[in-house]
């Protein structure tokens, strides 16, 4: 199963929207959480509509519109999205008014827009796109599920042009709640949580891709596989999952020109570091979350990073953790986990 990427629309903490390719200047993320560099939505959305739309709906719809434009596609044959948290701002707005107003004087707009499939549905309404439309909401493997769905659709019919996206937003309230609950603390093995655990800088983003089963001029990278696994018992189990996944694609670790890990910062965490020393000794290793922050669909951003690397045949220095070999990149493996619960593997290859 493979899907050629012929367009993308990326809204992130970096200047990734206007120009394609990597931004010239990478800005450091604001701790403890960082918002996206948002584009001028008026170029994409009517002002009347814009007023009623929450931030992630604006970001999602605009990233999707940019992606279609980038690929030169009017109406896609499917719209498939992943979101870990959905439309947080609208959910909070409706929920707070239900509680504060004792269930009286409520406005339907934020309720309607709180539904997790709002972004995908809104894109369909704007484009009058009657095709397949689905939304996956499984934490940090939401984008991976949407990708798997896309790959299956394309395996059935390689002609299909699928709009695939991942989007998540951060809000002040949700950050406060999730941070108090310790959700963004780095992973420490059981029972070893220090008094002041290190935590990730939290982020947000919307990343859309136009993918198809047929290579067409202009395509610059392809998704060649995706896999997820749950609560691995130990480092060895993770190593086995990785080699098993690559084996299914007829590849080995040695064929990987870069492993893009989901570690939050240069230091990494217990899981990344133990696999690194036992399995990835001879591999090129990189990371990306110092560009976009930690959020559930950050792997959609990582996929864009990987696709750009395959397109430019060059790994930006700022992404490199460990350099062991020097050849033009053909295969990039993204490996991410959240609190050692769900892990994911995404393979991208040159066209």
């Amino acid at each position, binding site marked *: 199963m493979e899907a050629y990427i012929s367009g993308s629309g990326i809204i992130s903490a970096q200047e990734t929207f206007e120009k394609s390719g990597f931004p010239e200047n990478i800005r450091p993320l604001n701790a403890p959480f960082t918002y996206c560099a948002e584009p001028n939505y008026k170029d994409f959305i009517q002002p009347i509509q814009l007023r009623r739309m929450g931030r992630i709906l604006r970001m999602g719809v605009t990233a999707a519109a940019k992606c279609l434009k980038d690929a030169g596609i009017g109406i896609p044959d499917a719209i498939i999205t992943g979101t870990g948290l959905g439309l947080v701002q609208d959910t909070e707005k*409706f929920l707070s008014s239900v509680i504060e107003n004792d*269930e009286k004087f*409520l406005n*339907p707009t934020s309720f309607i827009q709180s539904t997790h499939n709002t972004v995908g549905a809104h894109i369909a*309404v704007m484009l009058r796109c009657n095709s397949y439309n689905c939304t996956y909401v499984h934490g940090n493997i939401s984008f991976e599920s949407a990708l798997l*769905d896309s790959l299956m659709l394309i395996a059935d019919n390689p002609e299909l042009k699928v709009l695939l996206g991942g989007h998540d937003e951060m809000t002040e309230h949700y950050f406060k*709640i999730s941070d108090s609950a*310790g959700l963004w603390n780095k992973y420490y093995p059981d029972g070893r949580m220090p008094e002041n655990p290190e935590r990730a800088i939290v982020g947000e983003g919307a990343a859309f891709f136009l993918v198809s089963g047929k290579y067409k001029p202009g395509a610059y990278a392809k998704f060649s596989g995706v896999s997820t696994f749950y*609560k691995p018992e130990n480092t060895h189990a993770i190593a086995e999952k990785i080699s098993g996944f690559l084996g299914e694609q007829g590849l080995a670790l040695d064929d990987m020109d870069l492993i893009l890990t989901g570690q939050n910062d240069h230091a990494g965490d217990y899981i990344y570091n133990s696999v690194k020393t036992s399995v990835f000794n001879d591999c090129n290793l990189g990371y990306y979350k110092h560009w976009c922050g930690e959020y559930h669909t950050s792997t959609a951003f990582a996929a864009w990073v990987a696709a750009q690397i395959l397109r430019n045949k060059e790994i930006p220095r700022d992404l490199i953790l460990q350099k062991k070999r020097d050849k033009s990149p053909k295969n990039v493996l993204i490996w991410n986990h959240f609190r050692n619960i769900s892990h994911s593997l995404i393979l991208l290859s040159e066209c």
Partner: protein
Amino acid sequence: MYRRVVITGIGIISSIGNGISESLKSIRSLKSGIGPLTILNTIHKHSFPCGEIKLTDEELVVIAGKGVPDVVTRTTLLGIIAAKEAFNDAGIGPGEKPSVKTGIVSATTVGGMDKTEQYYFDFLNSGRYLEYVHTHDCCDNTQTIAECLGINDFMTTISTACSSSANAIMFGARLIRHGIADRIIAGGTDALSKFTLNGFNTLKILDEKLCRPFSNDRLGLNLGEGAGFIVLEADELPLKENRKIYCEITGYANANDAYHQTASSPDGYGPYLAMKNALDMSGFKPGQIDYINAHGTGTDNNDLTEGLAIEKIFSPRIPKVSSTKAFTGHTLGAAGAIEAVFSILAVKHGLIIPNLNYSGRINELSFEPATEFNEGLDIRSVLSNSFGFGGNDSSLIFSKY
């Protein structure tokens, strides 16, 4: 060549009963589960009847049995109960046969909102109940059910409003057809919450009386809660092990109405496409569908447009049509799976489940829903519709294997 996907186990909990046997009993005696709210603490408890499961969370914990975590939402509890029943029904013990690639696809609309709305201001201000924060996420029910069943391989969660669990079943079937899994437990779960009750109230589509799907004087829907799960397998597995097969999933499709976030297009184009594409996939002619378990919420908009779409495909020979939502209420993210369970039972027992509270034909439609209970008929294929916000329309076809 795609593999054939069959159903080998079913599980359900809703306001008409905990489990298949209680649910069948209620259906046979035409007993609706809709009535005044007594468990959900809301100012609307006397205004809007709902299909509420008359068991407290504490009672549900006991029923859910082994493996239930201390910190758990009502949504997840309902899911565990239905999923365990489906697994047992299929004759699969937890964690057995690691060679069979087993996964779970669950669905929900609001996840752990039942707890979040109780504790939200505590989360924010007092720092209490923070252990419930992660249970808000839609994937919490999926992971907890997976752990109860010993599933540690593939899992995901879908949320496409009221068609969520129909899409979960569809995705599960596709995973098996593509060989990504051999067995998938698929379904959905949603508990009643003030969030959804008030949300639907702001849309002014809740009936203050019992809902009357496909009736000319219908005034809206009644909400409900529950969970439904079905075990999907590549047919070679139950054949080899001599386990029972309820039926086969022969067709499915999802289409988008692309008209409005909450209202369907005047002629029900999305519903039409979903039904038509599911039929095309199954290779059946419209005349080969014996019963349609309609989405039939009881709202003005849904029943008219769904009816028009049914006419467009099936006229002049419209099969038996009924909505079972006057039994269970609209269970949102669970509805597609609960109604899939009803459709599977319809194939197995030759059932026509009557459309309760019917009071007269919709002026614009040519057909009336089935209002008589029937059993032992020759029902070979059932079409089940689930439509949701965002124009998300899905149809599933279950057929004798």
